[in-house]
């Protein structure tokens, strides 16, 4: 009843092509962003910020990057963790080796380095496809895991191979308190989110989707596969690299290559597939699901156990966590293989017709 576009007339091409053509959507997005900037910092406590919100925001950004590649361009990657690591270590090196390097510049340069590496490791995609490509991207994952452990220059000769960054200074603003870190991540995510949305609406995004749907056909109608695939790798790696740098700088503060292991790559791919391939908003849903669910289960199960009067051991809780997490993933894939984003779209459709279903 409320959610209806009746009476909203578009009088220009601009109005027809805007990101949110329906006024209610527009207002809802503005309201959510405003709430995230103003409301959340007032409500959330330190635990929410540091353990849930900040990881959620950063991993959303990474998932966004992975979704550009996997969801929009159809190239499956299991090497996203490596590109997070490249972003993090490159940004670290720019920050400590160049005097007076601003934080933002270091993060972006980290992203750019990651993009360059993305292009190099994207080259096999020109020959190899599908699951073969997925496994081939693992080469990048294991290679960089090794490189950051072994090549001392990357870690500034730290004897343990662990590096750390502190005193984040964003144009005079010392990003230190959890709420400040949250706002910083949120700001980055909003900017990058709109960037991603616009990229996918532009010619480049359409090229990616053409390649995804049928690469030979796309080639026939004049899309250069090399340009399209490599640009997807570059842009995706840029997003993932910036996310990696933020994961290291803002969330962990001190990290080792294990923070970007192959498990992280799987986690990111999970987010994208659970959230919805080829959907920007799906990346956020996926990230929320994967970040929050294990933590939730871990805390909720003992509470549940107490309610029914049994105390569950820590080991049993974490085993149950694994089982439920895995089962829910399979369940979601069965019920809605197109991800949470499709559920969202379906419910919006229903809302439009409500209260008259037909």
């Amino acid at each position, binding site marked *: 009843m409320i959610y209806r576009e009746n009476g909203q007339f578009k009088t220009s091409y601009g109005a027809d092509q805007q990101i949110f053509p329906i006024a209610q959507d527009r207002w809802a997005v503005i309201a959510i962003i405003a709430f995230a900037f103003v409301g959340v910092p007032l409500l959330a406590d*330190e635990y929410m910020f540091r353990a849930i919100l900040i990881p959620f925001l950063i991993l959303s950004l990474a998932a966004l990057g992975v979704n550009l590649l996997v969801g929009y361009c159809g190239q499956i990657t299991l090497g996203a963790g490596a590109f997070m690591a490249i972003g993090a270590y490159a940004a670290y090196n720019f920050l400590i080796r160049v005097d007076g390097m601003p934080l933002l510049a270091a993060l972006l340069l980290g992203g750019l380095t990651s993009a360059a590496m993305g292009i190099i490791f994207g080259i096999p995609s020109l020959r190899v496809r599908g699951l073969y490509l997925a496994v081939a991207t693992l080469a990048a994952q294991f290679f960089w895991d*090794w490189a950051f452990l072994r090549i001392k220059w990357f870690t500034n000769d730290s004897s*343990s*191979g*662990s590096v750390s960054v502190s005193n984040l200074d964003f144009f005079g603003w010392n990003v230190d308190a959890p709420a400040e870190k949250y706002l910083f991540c949120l700001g980055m995510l909003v900017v990058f989110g709109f960037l991603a949305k616009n990229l996918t609406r532009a010619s480049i995004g359409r090229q990616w989707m053409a390649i995804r749907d049928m690469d030979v056909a796309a080639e026939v109608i004049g899309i250069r596969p090399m340009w399209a695939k490599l640009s997807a790798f570059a842009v995706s790696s840029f997003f993932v690299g910036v996310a990696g740098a933020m994961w290291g700088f803002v*969330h962990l503060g001190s*990290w*080792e290559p294990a923070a970007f292991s192959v498990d992280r790559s799987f986690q990111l791919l999970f987010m994208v597939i659970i959230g919805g391939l080829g959907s920007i908003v799906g990346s956020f849903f996926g990230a929320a699901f994967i970040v929050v669910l294990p933590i939730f289960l871990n*805390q909720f199960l003992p509470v549940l156990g107490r309610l029914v009067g049994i105390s569950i051991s820590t080991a049993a809780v974490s085993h149950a966590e694994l089982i439920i997490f895995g089962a829910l993933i399979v369940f979601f894939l069965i019920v*809605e293989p197109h991800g949470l984003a499709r559920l969202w779209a379906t419910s919006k459709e229903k809302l439009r017709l409500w209260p008259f279903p037909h």
Partner: protein
Amino acid sequence: MKIRSLALAASLAAIGMTSAVTSTAAFAQAKEQFFPVLVYRTGAYAANGNPWANGYIDYLKLVNANGGVNGVKISFEECEFGYATDRGVECYERLKGKGATVFQPLSTGVTFALTDKAPVDKIPLVTAGYGRSESQDGSVFTWNFPLLGTYWVAADVAIQHIGKQAGGLDKLKGKKIALVYHDSPFGKEPIPMLQERAKMHGFELILLPVAHPGVEQKATWLQIRQNRPDNVLLWGWGVMNSTALKEAQATGFPREKMLGVWWAGAEPDVKDVAAGAKGYQALTLQHSAEPNSKVVKDMLEKVHAKGQGTGAKEEVGSVLYMRGLISSMVAVEGVRKAQERYGKGKVMTGEQVRWGLENLNLDQKTLDAMGFAGVMRPVQTSCLDHMGSSWVRVQTWDGSKWVPGTDWYQADDKLLRGMVLTASRKYAEEKKITPRTPEQCKQ
């Protein structure tokens, strides 16, 4: 379809409840000293994480059975993090909110991640036998306590022991020593010290990294076959240790020539190699397996006999169980010491516990009275020395149990101090920390 969407909606709503759960659970405990326990009872390192955690918790239960710390009861909560750094940080944040006053993550990765957070949150970090070696310098690392020993101590003593076996440190010249290490900050920590010693005595150090989790070591041991080192130092954790011993057996490398760090010298590491690991030696963090010590007997009597034991009875007194127990003990003693200054029978804050840990003074008499006779030697910390003791023994696996050696070693203080100071000053410079002066220390 309707049921499915209902189920979906229900599970989504359940996730939304997280915040509710977390905030309601975070009530403050009054009149109880809260001990957070970061554990890993599942995943790749569970076999080693379990006994440690059981020992840690059992000791807290024992303290409660004995009336608490001057009447203050101890409460505790486990948080499972599966040896993953980001889950460890999440656990830290979660338990911090419940009034934690001392953390022991049992993971070098988590220690690194928390070192920057601890001063902000004013919670001391006890890392008994692991963590960053330079954090021994308490004037820079105010909140870190690598009590009882660091990896540099272990590396130093390992070389001393090998030298002694060879008939003097000067005999090491021209020898080859291979370090088989877990490819992570944990495994890399000893390298600077070993390189320093290699320069001093003129032996050749061969570095052989093993990737996590360490189940594939064929190439490593082929290289050992190729290089024929005189000794092998094993710096592993979890399954990597037993795999290394099995590969040593399969390639015929004498186990007597293998020396493990204290994390490579517990029952889970050798149990299923059994006779194949006979003669294998490992450093101890003072204690070995101590089934006959008084504290273990107390434990069995006051905790396990009442059915309150955390783990299996058979496990009590095993190496990692003892390590957990002792880690727990030093933390409790830190609280006790703090109470001496800030008021007996009161619940201590993180800052007060920090003072207690920094002024810990467990002499042999106190230790004996607590049931640690023959298990431990005195520990005395100070502002400059957050480690408190560097006593190490060497134990040998006889095919069915660990037999502690009689010799006690200590790290070469001059060498160690020099390296610690260089590294900690570098850290202070990077982080723009001004080291505390002796006057500031007294506060």
